[in-house]
């Protein structure tokens, strides 16, 4: 079923996913400036207009006459940005934790990975809620908080990978040559981790984007008048009887992002490790 196409060694589905992602990213970056409307501009002449409506409201307007095309892709920009930054945070913590644990081995590894197990069993969604409420509802805190609880899988993957690297000859050679441990980790272990780390980062981004929209949906994430896919959907859900497009437009974009990233991550993982998880 999986034929290898020429491009990037990815199959057709994955290349479509990549194309969808590129399109959404381009629209998120440049889309809002294509429209004559601004994110928070009210157009009282066209309130609650359906998609393909008048006055260049390509995807309609909301109940305040704000342009939905501009708001949706400005929201997608925020969601993608938070997704990337939070993934970066969880990547930094996860790689550091996993690499140290895996390289140290023995009792320290057991202790550190046991801690990861305990964290895994925590109802972390509720911790994220308490944390975001506690430390203010700024976008910065949002991605730090989400990243800080999302590093566990990364730590496990990195730890297992490092453990298998530890017994390889080139590491032994570095140890024998008297290279300091920190340098071995940075120069010899880290570069060899980049493959799996990249794959799991790709798989972390959609989870983070979903988490952000979940929090924004509850009113804990990105605050009005700024737009994110989550708070747009919350408004859309409140207005769905009169203006269903307000719900459908941001939903479609969110689902497209999450689905494309998931497909891409799975394809990359299959390529790296044909045996699957």
């Amino acid at each position: 079923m999986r034929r290898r196409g020429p491009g990037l060694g990815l199959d057709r589905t994955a290349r479509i996913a990549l194309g969808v992602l590129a399109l959404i990213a381009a629209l998120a970056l440049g889309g809002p400036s294509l429209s004559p409307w601004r994110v928070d501009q009210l157009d009282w002449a066209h309130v609650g207009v359906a998609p393909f409506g008048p006055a260049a409201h390509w995807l309609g307007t909301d109940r305040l006459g704000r342009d939905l095309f501009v708001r949706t892709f400005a929201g997608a920009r925020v969601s993608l940005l938070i997704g990337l930054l939070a993934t970066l945070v969880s990547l930094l913590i996860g790689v550091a934790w996993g690499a140290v644990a895996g390289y140290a081995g023995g009792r320290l590894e057991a202790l550190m990975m046991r801690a990861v197990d305990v964290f895994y069993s925590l109802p972390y969604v509720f911790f994220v809620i308490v944390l975001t409420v506690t430390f203010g509802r700024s976008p910065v805190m949002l991605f730090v908080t989400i990243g800080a609880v999302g590093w566990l899988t990364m730590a496990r993957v990195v730890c297992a990978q490092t453990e298998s690297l530890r017994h390889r000859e080139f590491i032994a050679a570095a140890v024998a040559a008297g290279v300091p441990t920190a340098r071995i980790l940075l120069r010899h272990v880290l570069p060899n981790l980049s493959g799996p780390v990249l794959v799991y980062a790709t798989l972390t981004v959609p989870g983070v984007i979903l988490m952000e929209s979940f929090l924004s949906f509850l009113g804990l994430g990105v605050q009005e008048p700024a737009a994110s896919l989550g708070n747009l959907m919350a408004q859309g859900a409140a207005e769905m009887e009169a203006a269903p497009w307000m719900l459908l437009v941001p939903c479609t974009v969110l689902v497209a992002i999450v689905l494309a990233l998931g497909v891409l991550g799975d394809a990359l993982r299959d390529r790296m490790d044909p045996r699957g998880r």
Partner: protein
Amino acid sequence: MLGRVLGLVPTLFIIASLAFLVARLAPGGPFDQEQTLAPEIKANLEHAYGLDRPLAEQYFHYLGRLAHGDLGPSMRLRDFTVNELIAVGLPVSLTLGALALLLALVGGLGLGLLAATARRAAVDRTLMAVTALGIAIPPYVTAPLLALVFGIYLHWLPVAGWEGGAARDLVLPVIALALPTLAYLARLVRASALEVLSLPYVRTARAKGLPERLVLVKHVLPATLVPVLGYLGPAAAGILAGSLVIETVFGLPGMGRFLVEGALNRDYPLVLGKVLVYAVLVLGLNLATDLALGWLDPRVRRGRRA
């Protein structure tokens, strides 16, 4: 068995302490928002709830109460203790969660086995595409969409509400809550069933002339249950988190109600109490699945504990 249950106590202790600390690090207190409050009255209120004492003393007082199963009074919803509020919400959330988990299990097993044994590749591929979509769409998207289609356009079911837990009020929330887990389970079951189907003992069962249906039910199904059970803990945690949004969208009086408001209003006992109850539920289910795994797969019981 008893040892495993006792092993939960330190984890719960860590959770309780972490939650207490995080909640208290927050600036502001439960009586800040009411501008009309005279300083003397505020001081009196804080004294009544013990908020004027040192943090360490409050912490030990809180732990002591917790050991007796007392979660304290709610600071914002006066006249109610947290225990009372949870006693109202918990049955609703448990009904919702249990039904959603059941639906996800039955549906996931059925669809997964169907995909794995489908004669025509098109069936398999369609099912996999649909389940990929199901995983990508979170319950807070499906919930309003379902309400829109079945409540507003078709008038089949109520858009929202809760009249003493009538079945018609439960249908949409349960479906919305179950879908992502159902989709994930279907994929899990498919992968695991495909692996089992290629094993020699299945070939033996077929070779001795067992009808295909019996091969599936008696030989393939139990083996595919192992990864399904392993995923049950995370699945339950996901369903509990999802129920938070589902309860908001459909206006159900469950545990999720007041949690967000409580956190925003710094109603410490309420937030801590609810987080702890959620934690007990998740940990309890994790333990139950671990034990069930040992019962189902003797290798887990005898060997190292995974």
